[in-house]
């Protein structure tokens, strides 16, 4: 099977090269035979890569430990659930996963793009074939997943214990899907540049793709945060690690794009900016891949260092130079169709929103690369950790939160003073009211005060928008208010789904602010002994160590500690925290012992218990107890954000938009019922 897989990779490589050449030549010369051939090449490449993936999965499930990748990332006793995830647990397998998913997206783009956007497709086929072929080339020449060993081990090394977590099964593919799917809007952008069809058509053709990318990246980031929280044991969910940052960068740029693209669709402005953003987002996705796989910056998440980093660096530089050179040659064709009429307008607020998104992205990129820069300039390697990122990004993040509320309140084109007064009165009063309540309650942390106060402001803007829209429907169609609100959402999913995303963002910010108040302690307890810890809400928690038990599970020896929790003297449940020693099929230890934390999650606070270890092999245990406020709201905010994104993405939403041209700019009128 591995020979077949290897041959499938070569087939994908050759077909990909053919698809790239025929796509570009066919598109530029208008030759339909070549265009058709490029389209077929995309499908053939997808087929070949699916075959290669099946071959690797078969090797994994057959425990063919003669295959180096299978021996390195699986073992006989690895649960089936995690055998699936072994496909992308290592460098080589994840490259294959990436190429296969990209070829799937490329094929879907060919199949799903509507007839009126067909002019772009040959170029889209060319770009997607170039990118996918690059990944196949890396596998063939530097990281072959089908490489065989000179001997066959009795058992494999197994999967890293920290990857044996449901979050880690879904987090990487979600993030990959986000990274990979950016290639499609990028391909359409390059197609628009090459074909000189630079109106809004390419944006319309890729609207769903950009949302899909953004949503996958968001889900991937949230799942990564959840995994870090439940698995790593430090009680946090974001550490500004370079690999985390690399995943955040394209998401920030895509979010900026999703806002600014509305200005181009409604007013025919920001054409240059939007193209630059989508090219930048894609380059950042490749940059993230380079960071993760090159070992150029130390990170706990990185794959093993290997030579593939050089491939990615060269590809990144060539792609950046190529894309922006093409972009520069088309600048004269990208003039705006309308002029900005007022500084106080929705268009201007979106531009400031973009400034902050890109500002945050730049500061994250700057902080991530600063250690390398420092070494180059002053010969000294420095560490840029959370204190740096928090200092720079918290003020920018708060300003962005404020704009999240301000943007929707300002009218398109020009906002009048009475209009501003009417729009801002209730939200500003709400924000100030929330702030006063917090101050009276004794909160003094400036960051938290700002985050929660602004959260109140933004929430009020969203409620006000829903209330006004629902009241208008109620008056016009005599619908009950609740039904009117639902129909309002259903008829204009993009706008009101976007508002729900804003609510998700508010919840995330408020929850992040909660972490400023976490409390923790460390204690060594004999069975029956207790430690106490006061929560930020003033509750006194008592943790009683009940005892230690040891038992075997499928692929690990477990040492479990049981803790009884009392809150203000009343029983509040029990938590189990474990030390795990993973073993292979022969009972040999495979990795260093790992820790499983015990978490009791609540709306107000999480109780987080970590077993540090045992003293002299006795039942006397070392614990860390932490009370993390508002963490539940991070996950809930994430759900809300994703639900909002899905609403925006959902097809339909009323009759087709009627396009009108008035006074030199396009105004889209949504037919009202």
């Amino acid at each position, binding site marked *: 099977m591995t020979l077949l897989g290897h041959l499938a990779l070569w087939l994908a490589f050759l077909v990909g090269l053919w698809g790239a050449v025929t796509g570009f030549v066919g598109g530029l010369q208008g030759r339909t035979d070549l265009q058709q051939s490029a389209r077929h090449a995309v499908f053939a490449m997808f087929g070949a890569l699916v075959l290669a993936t099946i071959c690797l999965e078969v090797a994994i499930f057959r425990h063919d430990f003669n295959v180096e990748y299978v021996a390195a990332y699986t073992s006989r006793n690895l649960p089936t659930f995690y055998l699936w995830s072994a496909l992308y647990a290592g460098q080589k397998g994840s490259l294959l996963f990436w190429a296969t998913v990209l070829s799937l997206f490329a094929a879907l783009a060919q199949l799903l793009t509507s007839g009126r956007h067909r002019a772009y497709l040959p170029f889209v086929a060319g770009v997607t074939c170039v990118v996918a072929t690059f990944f196949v080339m890396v596998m063939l020449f530097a990281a072959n997943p089908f490489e065989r060993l000179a001997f066959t081990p009795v058992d494999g090394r197994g999967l890293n214990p920290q990857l044996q977590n449901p979050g880690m099964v879904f987090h990487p593919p979600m993030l990959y899907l986000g990274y990979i799917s950016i290639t499609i809007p990028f391909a359409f952008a390059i197609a628009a540049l090459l074909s000189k069809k630079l109106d809004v058509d390419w944006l319309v053709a890729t609207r769903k793709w950009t949302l899909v990318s953004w949503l996958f990246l968001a889900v991937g980031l949230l799942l990564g945060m959840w995994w870090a929280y439940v698995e790593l044991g430090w009680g946090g969910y974001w550490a500004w690690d370079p690999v985390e940052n690399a995943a955040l960068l394209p998401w920030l740029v895509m979010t900026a794009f999703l806002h600014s693209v509305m200005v181009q669709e409604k007013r025919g402005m920001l054409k240059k900016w939007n193209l630059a953003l989508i090219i930048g987002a894609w380059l950042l996705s490749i940059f993230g891949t380079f960071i993760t796989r090159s070992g150029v910056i130390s990170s706990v998440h990185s794959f093993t260092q290997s030579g593939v980093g050089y491939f990615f660096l060269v590809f990144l530089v060539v792609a950046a130079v190529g894309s922006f050179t093409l972009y520069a040659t088309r600048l004269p064709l990208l003039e705006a169709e309308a002029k900005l*009429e007022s500084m106080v307008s929705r268009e201007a607020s979106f531009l400031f929103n973009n400034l*902050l998104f890109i500002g945050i992205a730049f*500061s994250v990129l700057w902080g991530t690369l600063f250690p390398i820069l420092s070494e180059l300039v002053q010969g*000294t390697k420095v560490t840029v*950790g959370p204190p*740096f990122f928090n200092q720079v990004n918290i003020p920018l993040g708060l300003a962005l939160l404020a704009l999240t509320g301000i943007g929707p309140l300002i009218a398109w084109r020009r906002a009048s003073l009475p209009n501003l007064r009417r729009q801002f009165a209730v939200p500003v009063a709400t924000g100030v009211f929330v702030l006063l309540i917090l101050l009276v309650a004794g909160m003094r942390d400036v960051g938290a005060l700002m985050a929660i106060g602004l959260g109140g402001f933004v929430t009020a803007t969203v409620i006000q928008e829903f209330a006004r829209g629902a009241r208008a429907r109620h008056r016009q169609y005599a619908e009950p208010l609740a039904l009117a609100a639902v129909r309002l959402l259903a008829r204009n999913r993009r706008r009101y789904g976007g508002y729900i995303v804003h609510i998700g963002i508010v919840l995330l910010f408020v929850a992040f602010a909660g972490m400023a108040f976490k409390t923790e302690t460390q204690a060594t307890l004999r069975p029956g002994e207790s430690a106490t810890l006061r929560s930020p809400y003033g509750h006194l928690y008592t943790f009683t160590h009940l005892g230690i038990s040891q038992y075997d599970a499928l692929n690990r020896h477990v*040492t479990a500690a049981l803790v009884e929790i009392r809150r203000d003297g009343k029983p509040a449940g029990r938590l189990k925290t474990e*030390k795990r020693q993973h073993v292979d099929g022969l009972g040999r230890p495979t990795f260093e012992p790992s820790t499983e934390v015990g978490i009791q999650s609540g709306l107000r606070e999480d109780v987080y218990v970590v077993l540090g*270890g045992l003293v002299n092999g006795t039942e006397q245990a*070392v614990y860390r107890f932490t009370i993390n406020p508002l963490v539940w709201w991070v996950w809930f905010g994430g759900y809300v954000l994703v639900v909002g994104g899905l609403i925006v993405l959902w097809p339909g939403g009323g009759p087709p938009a009627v396009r009108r041209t008035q006074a030199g700019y396009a105004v889209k009128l949504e037919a009202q019922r």
Partner: protein
Amino acid sequence: MSVSRRGFLAVLAGSLGAAVQDSLAGSGPSGKVWDPSRAGRPMAPTTAGDTDAAIQAIEKQLKCTCGCGLDIYTCRTTDFTCTYSPELHKQVLALAADGKTAQEIIDAFVAQYGQQALMAPPKRGFNLAGYFVPSLAVLVAGVFLVRTLRRWTRAAAGEAAAAPPPAAAARDASPAELERLRRELERLSG
């Protein structure tokens, strides 16, 4: 004899509780666990220095050398598997016991491990660029954006002034009607 589901669960919970109680050592010293080697690295009992807020504050400024990217305090208490951070913690405790101030302890670490021992670079020399370039960039971009927007709005105003007179229907509309039309268009365009 019929037993309700709730009763059965109560009995089961009681039995489990009793089983847990049976495993307790009671008033005597704790016994050894079955296989201590399965429980990870043996730990020393927690000392006052381990939970000292001042020590934690120092350790939160110093990076662990294990490659995790975390500070010493977070690393040594994350899952208690790191072997580097406990040694670095001991070093901090020893320096504190020698009467060194927080800054002297941090300086000692920088002298031994270099600037990368710090979780954030010191604010001097080239490092200042690290701190201020992002804010400056946003500021400069903000000023540029405001100036560009002003230029655009002035150009739009100039074009509007030079434009031919509006059609008769629009000329006949009152300001109130025009404002109403604008609001309607705004509402419809979402």
